[in-house]
């Protein structure tokens, strides 16, 4: 009973957003209605036909995917090293890596902006993708290290005895064993990068502008376009929901096995 009420309570804003996205601006501002009186898809049509809207989504997805790929590519070998080898200062390095997450992204806005301007990277997708790596790589290393340490070292050794080269062992034998970990890691990288607004907005102007930034600039001379904004909000939730749907089994396993 209480969980049901609680979940309903949590769903209220999402319902309200969905209902607003199907109303006309007149109905939204004109009065109070629990559900759309004359449901319309006009707001969604605006988004799917106006490039300044749908490019926002494309830009966001491009840099989020880039960031997830880079984070995993960098974190997999790093996590393997932390999990399997002992080297001078390994524990300190591991901790230091993680301290990068202790500062809010706003701290890094100024240096990033200055640095990326110098290299001519402002308003490119890769700029945002790399900036987000500062937060995602440590998290990815930390999660993956937990999963990798759960794989017995004897499997590595058996593979070497059998004659596997390192890359072949890593991709054919080892990676399938930590597939849930990779799924969980990808999920967290995706989520952070998809939600992060400050860095993404500062490092882009037109060509790589993320959807969240587009949404904050809809106050026009004709006032606020409530319906379109609500539709954009719903569409922004969709990719996250899709990702969760695809990795839900991995996440469940991940919570049981690894470090999450």
């Amino acid at each position, binding site marked *: 009973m209480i969980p049901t009420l609680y979940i309903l309570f949590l769903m209220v804003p999402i319902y309200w957003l969905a209902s607003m996205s199907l109303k006309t601006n007149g109905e939204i501002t004109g009065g109070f209605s629990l559900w759309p009186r004359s449901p319309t898809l006009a707001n969604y049509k605006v988004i799917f036909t106006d490039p300044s809207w749908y490019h926002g989504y494309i830009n966001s997805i491009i840099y989020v995917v880039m960031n997830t790929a880079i984070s995993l590519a960098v974190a997999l070998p790093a996590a393997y090293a932390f999990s399997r080898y002992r080297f001078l200062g390994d524990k300190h390095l591991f901790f230091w890596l993680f301290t990068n997450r202790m500062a809010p992204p706003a701290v890094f806005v100024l240096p990033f902006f200055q640095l990326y301007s110098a290299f001519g990277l402002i308003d490119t997708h890769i700029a945002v993708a790399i900036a987000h790596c500062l937060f995602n790589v440590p998290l990815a290393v930390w999660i993956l290290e937990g999963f990798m340490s759960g794989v*017995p070292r*004897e*499997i590595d*050794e*058996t*593979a*070497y*005895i*059998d*004659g*596997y*080269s390192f890359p*072949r062992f890593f991709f*054919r*034998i080892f990676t*399938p*064993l930590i597939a849930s970990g990779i799924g969980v890691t990808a999920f967290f990288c995706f989520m952070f990068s998809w939600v992060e607004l400050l860095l993404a907005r500062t490092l882009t102007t037109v060509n790589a502008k993320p959807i969240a930034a587009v949404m904050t600039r809809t106050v026009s001379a004709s006032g606020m376009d409530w319906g379109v904004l609500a539709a954009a909000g719903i569409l922004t939730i969709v990719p996250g929901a899709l990702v969760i749907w695809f990795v839900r089994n991995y996440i469940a396993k991940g919570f049981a096995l690894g470090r999450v």
Partner: protein
Amino acid sequence: MLELREVSKVVEGETHIAPTSLMLTPGSLNVLLGPSLSGKTSLLRLMAGLDRPTTGTVWADGKDVTGVDVRRRNVAMVYQQFVNYPALTVFENIASPLRLARAPAAEIDAKVRAAAELMRLTPYLDRTPLTLSGGQQQRTALARALVKGASLVLLDEPLANLDYKLREELREELPRIFAQSGAILVYATTEPSEALLLGGNTATLHEGRITQFGLTIEVFRNPADLTTAQAFSDPPLNTVAANKTGANFMLGGGLSVVAPKGLADGPYVLGVRPHHLALSAQGKSSAGLGATVSVTEITGSESFVHFPFGGSDWVMLTPGVHEFQPGEAIKVFLDPSRMMVFSADGQVLVN
């Protein structure tokens, strides 16, 4: 031929293996026998090339292979834990060393199927290891070691985690299966009875040191010292300090037994195997000692009777079911002619 020359392993100031020399010949079965932490696994890892010795060299077929990468050595290893590649099918697990050696597909198929037949895995070739029972998983690992055709096969307590029935079956089959390959087989175990059942040669290990190496039955019958005799006795060897004066050993508790001829007077350690103790006199020199039973374990056809003697715990293994109560006073007979006599520092003097 595998030869260890003065090989030692020190990890963070702790000696895992004291300088050890050992020569193993092709086609031989060699048992490393010792309790946990005696250095069996460390020694196997040095032989395999997984670890580099701190000092000393490892020679294979006349070549110095110290520090040579394990991928370039022709070895196979099976661990106590069932180690397979969970993402691959049983077939691919067994085939993996052959695939890496770029063997022709027909040859791989034939060899894998033959090994699977030997290990009775044929019905499971298309399954993945984690869907199999522990015994099947371990047989997959053994089959993989078999198809590789390595000249050195290292088995680290391969049967320890298996159930009793399967352990007996595999223990019988393994030496036979690997003997045909002409490989040097090294088998680590904690169980003296397993070493005796396997036969071949045995090296007894104690605190990172090989105390004796030779034919298993020889090592068992003629241990060179007290630690070897203790390592190679299950249930544990009964020992007692004794003092020789004249023709007799004086044991604790006022017992005196006939001493073998030719020993000087002085302190000795006597060792008596549990099955050499009896409830009745076995000869005219047999000495009876009064014992107070502390506990009796009955296995069905044999009884283990524990009692304190001369400051340590003794155990008698006697045929038949004897339901002695704790505290019960019994008489235990000891045959002096079957006693082992060690010098005070543990060297064997009389078997």
